């Protein structure tokens, strides 16, 4: 019987080892690395990871398991946010403050990448030079070459930090634009898109 077939209050030996590994890891650990360390198949590692994720959530350990673009890592549970956010200033540096304009710019780039600044400005209807510069400095965007043609404008792409910041493991997790339209066909609650750019 696998550890995931029946919910249990006790972790499987493999689950315990994975938990210990992720506890000491200072950067995300890939599924293949876990499989190699435990001498198990990648599919078994995936199953154990899901099982551990479920276990942590179900038993209220104050911790959680998260899959990011570069692998799995142990995080604090959402419920503990208030107290953890007060604990030393070091934890605060992990968070990036983003304006509404910045998030909308990121959304446009995420769905059209690689994309030029003028493409983004054409969709948003406002100048985006400063927003893009700030997003580049935060490491949420990267320059992905130049488009061939007049002026050879720079192309932009989102980075793994973008995925990490928004809790995504890959860009494919984003719903398509058509799906989004279906979710909110009337656009209710949406303000005008051509408002003046806010400061970041």
């Amino acid at each position, binding site marked *: 019987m696998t550890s995931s077939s029946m919910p249990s209050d006790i972790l499987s030996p493999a689950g315990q080892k994975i938990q210990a590994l992720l506890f000491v890891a200072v950067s995300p650990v890939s599924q293949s690395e876990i499989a190699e360390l435990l001498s198990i198949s990648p599919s078994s590692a995936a199953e154990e990871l899901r099982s551990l994720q479920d276990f942590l959530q179900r038993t209220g350990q104050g911790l959680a398991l998260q899959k990011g673009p570069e692998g799995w890592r142990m995080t604090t549970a*959402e419920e503990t946010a208030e107290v953890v956010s007060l604990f030393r200033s*070091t*934890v605060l540096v992990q968070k990036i403050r983003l304006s509404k304009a910045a998030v909308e710019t990121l*959304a446009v780039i995420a769905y059209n990448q690689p994309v030029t600044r003028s493409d983004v400005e054409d*969709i948003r209807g406002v100048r985006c030079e400063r927003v893009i510069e700030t997003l580049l400095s935060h490491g949420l965007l990267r320059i992905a070459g130049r488009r061939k043609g007049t002026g050879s404008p720079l192309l932009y792409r989102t980075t793994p930090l973008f995925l990490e910041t*928004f809790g995504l493991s890959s860009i494919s997790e984003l719903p398509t634009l058509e799906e989004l339209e279906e979710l909110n066909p009337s*656009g209710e609650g949406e303000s005008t898109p051509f408002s003046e750019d806010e400061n970041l």
Partner: protein
Amino acid sequence: MYEGSPGFGEFSADVEGFSGPFDLLCFLVESGALETARISVGQIVRIYGAYLANTRHVSVETVSEFLFLAATLVLAKARSLLPRREADPAAGEEVADDGDVLEKISRYRPYRIAAGRLRAGKERQDRIFFRPSDEEEEEQFGNLGDLYALCRQWWDIFESRRGSLPRSSRIEFFASEDWDGIPSALPEEEQIEGKISEILARLAGCGSIRFSQLLDGKGKAALFVVTLLALLEMARMGRIRMEQEALFHDVVFYAL
């Protein structure tokens, strides 16, 4: 009429309904009789400018008319180069603009929804924390600045040493054992340990010191090598922190 004849430069051609050749040209362009893209505005301006200069009696009205017609020609040319939008004869200009805005709003709507979802994701993500990466710490201890800045220190030593030697000694200078690295007077470890003690003593006095100051302006290759090795060892031991303000700048060392 030929060049040098009494009337040359005062020639004028009047066509009924047109005030001059440039006006006629503009009419031909606007009426579509001439293809705008094939007209060299620069050449026309040069010719017409030369003609106006030759007349020697140019009035303000003539110049202003010339500028107006030249601008008209440039505008016509610019329009001919841009893709044309098929106008809807039934709709007025104002209605067409509204349609354009509505289309843009409609096109932008899914991105706003996506941004809303991203914000929600970020809010969730902001409530979770993880063990901070030690990448920054590694960078702090292991970064000796960019390679160019390091090379520059070496070139300075090289140039000062080379410049101080007579031409006849330069061949020997290049073959000198000093350039092989550390001189053999003391074992490598002892020299580095001594340099570490020296740097720590200097740091104790002032708190921070620049790489160039550590070399004391002495053009010694051995000093450069020993200092560099000592600094790397100190960084490895966590005794110093290194900072480079900007690319190609001097590296500053701080005591920890």
